[in-house]
């Protein structure tokens, strides 16, 4: 059904969907308001009941068939239509998928019943790509999209990207096709693509999963899944969708879509927050470290307020943007070593705030903070943890550990700090401010000075790459959808970053292959806001799922991609060199083995062009970078992806 036809074909389940959507809209406000709107089984007042004509249309039978033939040939109201209503009720805009027979029922419902609109299917040549797109999208949009995975094979392809999302605390709703009833499986592939528990492969790194046995069970599990995914610590969830449930007649089941009432994020205990405030106010050298803290701009604004009240430097660990790098209190990691009190906000690895473990033959911990440094930790990491995968980092006994979402806890902490600030303490802020302003200015000058070196080099320096980009995007509403950790953090060192959407952190699990699809997913969310999405693409990462550039071209997702093409896996070069050094052999040239992407050098521009993207390159001369990006921007301004391959220095 085309979206424009929907008005003529409204049936009972669309009525239910409309009613439930109204319920979700109410639920998005506050818990109290949601509770008022969520009276079980009752549609919201805004939804009108179906007319007689609509009801009659719903029960039209094909002519020329006996009742037995109708029963054998046709399904009037497949279960997957109801599933689509549930997805619509959650205001999910897109579903990424690589098509598979285990979910052919809902595939058809999304297209012909749901009008392929909200959710719209996005075709992906690989499940890893489909999940990573959802990962990037959620960090920009602030809400999940759904990913549809083929049972067994789809989950196995998707697994790496699910792990990244888990580590990065990002919500994704994964729907998995499966055939539970062995007696209903066709011989061959349907058996190979079925499992007792298809989600097993990702169970160690999703927050919750379920395998509903009825449509009503599905509806309730979808609401629960969404709610769990969005409650800090956020994360991916899985709901399996049985092939039989999708394809069979709903019949006379009485189905309803419950409202989804979002859980308010947990806030730190008031007494503990007051104690934290006292420590911070009394500290001579308080330092704030923020990692996956700011969910949105409110988080940044709150952290600015707290830092200014204390005139305390902020060390951004950059799991998210967290703090404007233009602010005078934005300082480097060296401040952690001088702090007497450190406030860690959603820090994934608080142990490393004051310790390090050098990569030597004997791994002996070193204290890098002062011996008297006290650490306050506010975050949700302790609220949900699993055992097998060790992304939770080394145990650290914080001096004051507060369980609560840091962004949600900041207002209470700010008030507590303000209440405890004495006049004498406040008077020290002028001197502190001047010191940090001077330090910030020095850091800025040092970054510009460092960027001069290799300015005219070929391969192109990564600083030059970022500044050529900056000159062309600085007057636009731009947003980075890639991270710059492997490029000497030049974006952070050279570009002013102040808005939450301008930087979304990294992969979480350091699983290569995240970069390109997450960038396309982020660009999809930025498209709705009319922003220019910028992806500085690593060559090694691109080789994992280059098909995502086809998805970007096919679905008209505007994205400017410029490569940091260093022809290899350079981090691994250094690891191999370190091993050779320890063993005193091969230091003069063996480290390229297994680490270079050469002979032949992948022609990334041709790959992108082959996927339907406008492309240029490979570019080796720095003077050619700017003009190529300028041409690419013209393409992006027309709503298409564009790709510029630049051969660069290693980092």
């Amino acid at each position, binding site marked *: 059904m085309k979206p424009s036809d929907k008005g003529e074909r409204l049936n009972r389940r669309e009525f239910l969907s409309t009613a439930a959507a109204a319920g979700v809209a109410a639920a998005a406000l506050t818990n109290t308001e949601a509770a008022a709107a969520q009276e079980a089984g009752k549609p919201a007042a805004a939804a009108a009941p179906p007319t007689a004509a609509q009801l009659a249309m719903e029960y039209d039978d094909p002519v020329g068939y006996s009742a037995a033939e109708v029963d054998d040939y046709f399904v009037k109201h497949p279960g997957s239509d109801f599933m689509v209503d549930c997805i619509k009720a959650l205001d999910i805009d897109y579903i990424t998928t690589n098509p598979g027979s285990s979910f052919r029922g809902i595939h058809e419902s999304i297209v012909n019943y749901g009008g392929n609109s909200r959710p719209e299917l996005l075709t992906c040549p690989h499940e890893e790509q489909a999940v990573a797109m959802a990962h990037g999208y959620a960090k920009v949009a602030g809400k999940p999209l759904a990913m549809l995975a083929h049972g067994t094979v789809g989950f196995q392809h998707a697994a790496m990207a699910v792990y990244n999302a888990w580590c990065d605390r990002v919500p994704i709703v994964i729907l998995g096709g499966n055939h539970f009833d062995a007696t209903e499986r066709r011989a061959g592939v349907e058996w190979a693509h079925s499992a007792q528990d298809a989600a097993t492969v990702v169970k160690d790194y999703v927050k919750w999963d379920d395998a509903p046995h009825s449509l009503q069970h599905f509806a309730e599990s979808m609401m629960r899944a969404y709610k769990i995914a969005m409650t800090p610590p956020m994360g991916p969830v899985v709901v399996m969708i049985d092939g039989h449930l999708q394809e069979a007649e709903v019949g006379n089941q009485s189905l309803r879509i419950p409202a989804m009432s979002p859980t308010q994020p947990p806030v730190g205990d008031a007494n503990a927050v007051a104690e934290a405030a006292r420590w911070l106010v009394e500290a001579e050298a308080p330092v704030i470290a923020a990692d996956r803290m700011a969910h949105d701009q409110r988080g940044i604004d709150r952290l600015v307020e707290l830092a200014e009240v204390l005139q305390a430097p902020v060390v951004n660990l950059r799991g998210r943007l967290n703090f404007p790098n233009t602010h005078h209190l934005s300082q480097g990691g060296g401040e952690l070593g001088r702090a007497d009190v450190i406030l860690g906000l959603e820090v994934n690895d608080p142990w490393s705030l004051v310790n390090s473990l*050098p990569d030597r033959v004997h791994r002996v911990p070193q204290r890098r903070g002062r011996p008297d440094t006290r650490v306050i930790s506010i975050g949700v990491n302790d609220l949900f943890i699993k055992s097998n995968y060790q992304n939770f980092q080394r145990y650290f006994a914080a001096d004051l550990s507060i369980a609560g979402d840091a962004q949600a806890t900041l207002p209470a902490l700010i008030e507590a700090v303000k209440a405890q600030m004495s006049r004498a303490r406040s008077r020290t802020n002028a001197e502190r401010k001047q010191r940090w302003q001077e330090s910030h200015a020095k850091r800025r000058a040092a970054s510009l000075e460092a960027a*001069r*070196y290799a300015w005219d*080099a070929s391969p192109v*320096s990564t600083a030059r790459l970022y500044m050529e980009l900056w000159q062309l995007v600085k007057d636009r509403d731009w947003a980075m959808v890639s991270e710059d950790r492997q490029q000497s953090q030049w974006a952070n060192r050279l570009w002013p970053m102040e808005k939450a959407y301008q930087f979304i952190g990294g992969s979480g699990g350091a699983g290569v292959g995240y970069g390109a699809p997450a960038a396309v997913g982020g660009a999809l969310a930025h498209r709705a806001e009319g922003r220019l999405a910028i992806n500085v693409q690593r060559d090694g990462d691109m080789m994992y799922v280059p098909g995502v550039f086809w998805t970007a071209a096919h679905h008209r997702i505007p994205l400017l991609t410029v490569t940091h093409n260093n022809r290899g896996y350079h981090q691994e070069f250094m690891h191999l060199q370190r091993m050779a050094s320890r063993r005193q052999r091969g230091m*003069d040239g063996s480290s390229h083995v297994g680490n270079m992407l050469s002979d032949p050098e992948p022609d990334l521009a041709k790959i992108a062009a082959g996927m339907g993207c406008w492309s240029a390159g490979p570019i080796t001369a720095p003077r050619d970078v700017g003009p190529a990006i300028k041409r690419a921007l013209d393409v992006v301004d027309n709503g298409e992806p564009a790709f510029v391959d630049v051969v660069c220095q*290693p980092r």
Partner: protein
Amino acid sequence: MTVLHTSPWTIGALLLLLFGLNTAFAQDPAAPASDGKELYLSYQCWQCHGYEGQGGAAARLAGKQYPYAAFARFVRHPNLMPAYPPNLLSDEKLRRIFDYVRSIPEPPPLEDIPALRENK
């Protein structure tokens, strides 16, 4: 938790020793800087320090005015980077790498680079 300490006397003794080595391995005037660049590349210095010594994963080498002794100490007894022992990278080769690093020309001044000047 173990805290590592390095005695200032130890550091001083090492520097003295290395400054002493500096005189023992004077530069071969016949060795061109390009030879040092070949060594810089073949010994993979560029992986972390960049083809032009501009830095990246490790510190910038270009434009730094440190003596050979300090350079050699960092290479032989590093804190973070892999150690390059003399049997794998001779003092003579190390010296040629040093000469190359010192010969890397200064980049244009900041004022001559519009993209940097305009964004000060």
